[in-house]
């Protein structure tokens, strides 16, 4: 039956017995066969030439043209780190504070897969307000994002540095085109500008891309006595 979906199918009176099995015409092989023949017609004028023009373009070098970053939030600032430095993102958990070290950027020690790692408050390092995002989230406040811990690593020839950063929310891994990166304006506060390498637009927000090596250096300076 030609165009049966218009007569007895979902666009018609739904009397087709096959609808019991397929529920909707889009699941039915009759419609699939009809759809297949839809493009079985002569190519319009200029179609072949338009594809010649498209195929003459070399393929975009996607690997070089963009970079993968993890976007997260600290206080009100949206920040990003190259995902190459990322080890894992994990749920916020109990922080064990270190005596005589309270009030510094070192928020405490945290158990990550059986190993105690240094957990650092990005708020202090970047000069932002708010506390370290460790521990249990405060109750009663509106659930605006989930505090999480980001484990980052820098592999040096001699040793491997691993840090845990407490953040207020993680928005996931996104790709940023290299062309979309803008330089950091000189008006940005010193502490944040020292660690940021570029800014980019993401979902109508301006995100600061942190330079991982400068961040690691800043972490070291703040924590070591």
């Amino acid at each position, binding site marked *: 039956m030609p165009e049966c979906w218009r007569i007895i199918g979902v666009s018609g009176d739904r009397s087709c017995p096959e609808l019991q099995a397929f529920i909707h015409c889009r699941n039915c092989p009759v419609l699939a066969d009809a759809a297949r023949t839809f493009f*079985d017609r002569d190519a319009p004028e200029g179609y072949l030439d338009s594809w*010649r023009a498209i195929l003459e373009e070399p393929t975009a070098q996607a690997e070089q043209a963009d970079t993968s970053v993890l976007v997260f939030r600290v206080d009100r600032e949206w920040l990003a780190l190259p995902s190459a430095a990322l080890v894992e993102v994990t749920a916020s958990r109990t922080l064990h504070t270190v005596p005589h070290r309270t009030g510094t950027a070192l928020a405490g020690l945290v158990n990550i897969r059986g190993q105690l790692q240094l957990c650092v408050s990005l708020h202090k390092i970047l000069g932002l307000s708010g506390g370290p995002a460790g521990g249990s989230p405060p109750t009663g406040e509106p659930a605006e994002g989930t505090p999480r811990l980001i484990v980052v690593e820098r592999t040096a020839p001699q040793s491997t540095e691993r840090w845990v950063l407490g953040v207020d929310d993680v928005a996931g891994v996104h790709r940023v085109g290299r062309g979309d990166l803008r330089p950091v304006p000189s008006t940005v506060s010193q502490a944040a500008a020292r660690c940021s390498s570029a800014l980019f637009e993401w979902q109508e927000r301006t995100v600061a891309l942190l330079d991982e090596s400068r961040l690691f250096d800043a972490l070291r300076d703040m924590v070591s006595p």
Partner: protein
Amino acid sequence: MQLLTFTIAGEAYAIASRRVVEVLPLVRVRPIPHTPDYVRGIFTYRGQLVPLVDLGLRLGTGPLAERLSTRVVVCEFTIGGGEPQRLGIVAENVISICSSEDADASLPSLELPDAPFLGQVLRIGGRTVQVLTIDHLLPTDVASGLFPLPTATHES
């Protein structure tokens, strides 16, 4: 072996999907004079010049029409175990892949002197599919003419 199936003049054919680089819409080609009629010409594929073979003419069933559903399958073509070259073939209804392990019945590779590209014949899912061997699609003289060896001129 995964196979990419298509039709030529209503009959089902297949090539090994491992050799397929990309399936493209039909594209305008520049004809090459003094080539066999099944060599449609040459087109630019991602900055590379690639010859295009009309399978309808190669199989002797007449040229394939320029339809919206007609496709160019860019595949890897090797001559005598050399570096893989890009070859485009024109086919119709390039819509499905199947596995040769699912075949209910099969005929071993045909060995016809005039058609060395005809491989196994498989019965898959109620269809009889003729497998084509890409490397034997062009006669040796046409293949070496379309893909001249660059080393011969560089070293002399």
